[in-house]
C-alpha cells in the first residue's frame, strides 16, 4: 500500500526536486493518481517540461478557498483576502501560508481517496517550520473551527500508512548531520515512516570503472563518512552523470522502485 502523502525534504542542494519528480513518475507508471507539488509557486522547469501531473496552489488561493468554505461564501472570502491587512499578514508569517497549503493537500487527499500527493518540501529549517506551524498555530488559536481542522490535519498525517517522509542528504558530513537532525525531528513529531537516504553517491559502476584517481579519492571520503554515521545499510541513490533529466530519472529509477515497494 503506497502512502497518500510523500514528503521529500533535506538540506538545500540534495536533489529533493529530482527525487520527488522520480517518485511521481514512478507512481504514475504504476497507474496511480499521483501529483507533484511544491510550496514554490514557480514550478521547476523539468517538471513542467515532461508534463508531470501537479497540484499547484498558492497560500492566497488556498486561504481563499478555505475561508470561503468556512464562511459558506466564496465571494466573501475573496473580499476578505483582498484586504491589505491579510496580504501583509501572510507575508510576514510564511508558516501560516505553509500550514494552509498543507491543509489544502490533505483536504484534497481526503476528498479523493485514490489521489497521492508528492510534496517537494522546503529545505530543513523551513520544513521544520511547516510541521511546527501545526502545533504553533494550535496554541495560538486555542479553540474554534480552525483548531478542529488542525487536529484533523494532525490525525491524517499521523495515521499509519498515510504519510511517508524521505530525507535526502548527500555524502558530506554537513549534509548527513543535517539529515539526521531532520529525521529525528520528523520522527519525534510522530511521523514514524521517515527514512534518511544518501543521494548523489559516487558508489556507481560508472565511477568505479572510470579509472579516475580523483573520483576514487572522493569515493573513499564518501565511504569514510557513511561508515562513521551508519552501522546498518543505508539506501544510496547513485549520482547520474548526465545533463539530461530523463536520463537522470532512468538512472535512479531502480532505487526509487525499492523505496516505494516499502510503502
Amino acid at each position: 500500500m503506497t502512502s497518500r502523502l510523500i514528503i521529500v525534504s533535506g538540506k538545500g542542494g540534495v536533489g529533493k526536486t529530482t527525487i520527488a519528480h522520480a517518485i511521481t513518475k514512478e507512481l504514475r507508471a504504476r497507474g496511480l493518481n499521483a501529483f507533484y507539488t511544491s510550496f514554490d509557486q514557480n514550478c521547476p522547469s523539468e517538471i513542467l517540461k515532461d508534463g508531470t501531473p501537479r497540484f499547484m496552489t498558492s497560500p492566497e488561493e488556498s486561504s481563499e478557498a478555505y475561508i470561503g468554505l468556512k464562511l459558506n461564501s466564496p465571494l466573501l472570502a475573496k473580499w476578505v483576502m483582498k484586504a491589505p491587512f491579510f496580504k501583509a499578514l501572510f507575508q510576514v508569517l510564511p508558516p501560516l501560508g505553509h500550514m494552509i497549503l498543507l491543509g489544502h493537500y490533505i483536504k484534497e487527499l481526503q476528498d479523493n481517496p485514490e489521489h497521492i500527493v508528492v510534496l517537494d518540501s522546503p529545505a530543513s529549517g523551513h520544513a521544520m517550520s511547516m510541521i511546527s506551524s501545526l502545533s504553533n498555530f494550535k496554541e495560538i488559536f486555542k479553540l474554534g473551527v480552525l483548531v478542529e481542522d488542525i487536529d484533523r490535519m494532525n490525525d491524517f498525517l499521523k495515521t499509519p500508512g498515510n504519510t511517508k517522509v524521505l530525507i535526502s542528504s548527500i555524502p558530506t558530513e554537513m549534509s548527513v548531520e543535517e539529515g539526521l537532525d531532520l529525521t529525528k525531528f520528523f520522527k519525534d513529531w510522530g511521523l514514524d515512516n521517515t527514512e534518511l537516504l544518501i543521494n548523489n553517491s559516487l558508489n556507481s559502476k560508472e565511477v568505479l570503472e572510470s579509472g579516475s584517481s580523483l573520483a576514487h579519492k572522493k569515493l573513499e571520503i564518501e565511504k569514510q563518512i557513511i561508515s562513521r554515521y551508519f552501522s546498518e545499510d543505508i539506501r544510496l541513490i547513485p549520482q547520474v552523470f548526465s545533463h539530461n533529466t530523463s536520463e537522470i530519472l532512468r538512472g535512479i529509477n531502480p532505487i526509487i522502485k525499492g523505496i516505494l515497494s516499502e510503502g
Partner: protein
Amino acid sequence: MKGNHYQLEIFCGTGGVGKTTLATSRAIYLAKKDLRVLLITIDPSLRLKQVLSLSDKSAGDIKKVELEEYCFDALLMSSQKTFDRLGIDKDKNNKILEVLMRPNGGMNEIMAIIEVQSQLESNNYDCIILDTPPGKHFLDFLDASKKIDRFFDKSYIEIFKFLGKNLNSQLPSEGKKKIFSKIVSSGVKKLLSYLERVTGKEFVETFIEAIFVLHQNKNYFLKALTFQRFLKESDNYQWFLVSSTEQSKVKEIIEIAKNATHLSKEHSVLLINKCMDMGSIDEDEFSKVPVKYFIEREHQIIDFFDRSKLFKNLLKFPDIFEADPKKHVKSLTSHWN
C-alpha cells in the same frame, strides 16, 4: 576583492554549495589579520554550529571562537534572543508573539535583518560576515524590510485609523476591551468578525494585542529599513553568490542575481566552489567520469559569468578532499590570500 575587507560581507547561493564553510573560512582569514570579526548565520539549519563546535543552546548568544592564532565572534541567529536583546517591550506575554519567536516560528528572516542592522550600528566590528539561508529564502531575507514596511504601513492604517492617536502602552485590560470593541464597532468590524468565525473570539483579542505590542515597538522593526538603505547607499559591503561544480543550478543563480535588486552589481562576486580545474590535477583525469562533468559545469558557470555580466568579479575555490568540516575550513582559509 579577496584581500580587502568590508563592513558587511554576505554569502548567499543555492543549498549545499558550501556557503557556511566558505563564510567561516573568510571569518578566520580576516580574524588572523587582527580584524574584529563577527560571523552570523541566519540559516535556520544552523550548520555553523557543526563547523565551530557550538551547541544548540548557544543559539542567540554571541560566542567567542578562540584558537591560538585568531579569535572572532560568532552568532547563531535566534529570533527570541534578538527580540530580548533589543529590549522590545513584551511584558504582555502575548501568546502569538511568544510562539512566533520560537526557533521554527517563522520570524527568522525578519528578526535576522533587525539583528544585523543593530550589529552594524554597534560599531563593534570591522567586518560582519553573513551566512544566509539557501536560494529563495535569501531573497525573503532581503525582502523582509519591504514586508515589515508594508505590514506597518497599509495594515496598520487600516486598523489604527479607528483608534485615535493616543495609544498608550500601559493599557489596562479594560482599556483594551474598549479599544477592541471600538475596532469591532468600526469598519474593520466586519473583517474581524469573519476572522472570528474562523478562528474563535479569543484569538482575535490576542491578535489585536499582538498588533499593539508590535506597533509600540515599531521603531525596532523599522530598523530593517535602515539596513535596506545601507545596501543601497553604502560602498562598504561585498556579496558572494556561491555556486558549485557539483550542481548545475545556473537558472537558480540567475534568479537570485536578478531578484537581489537591493544589492549592487558593483559589490558582487560570483564564487565557484569545488573547482577541479586549478592546475593541480593531471590532465588525463579531465576526460574521466566524474571529473569531466565537474569541469563541464565549472566552464558552464564561467561562461554564464562572461555572458550575463550580472557580476563584477569571479572567484574560484578548489575542491577540498577532506571529510572533516573543520579541516575543510582550515584548508579553504589559505585560499583567501
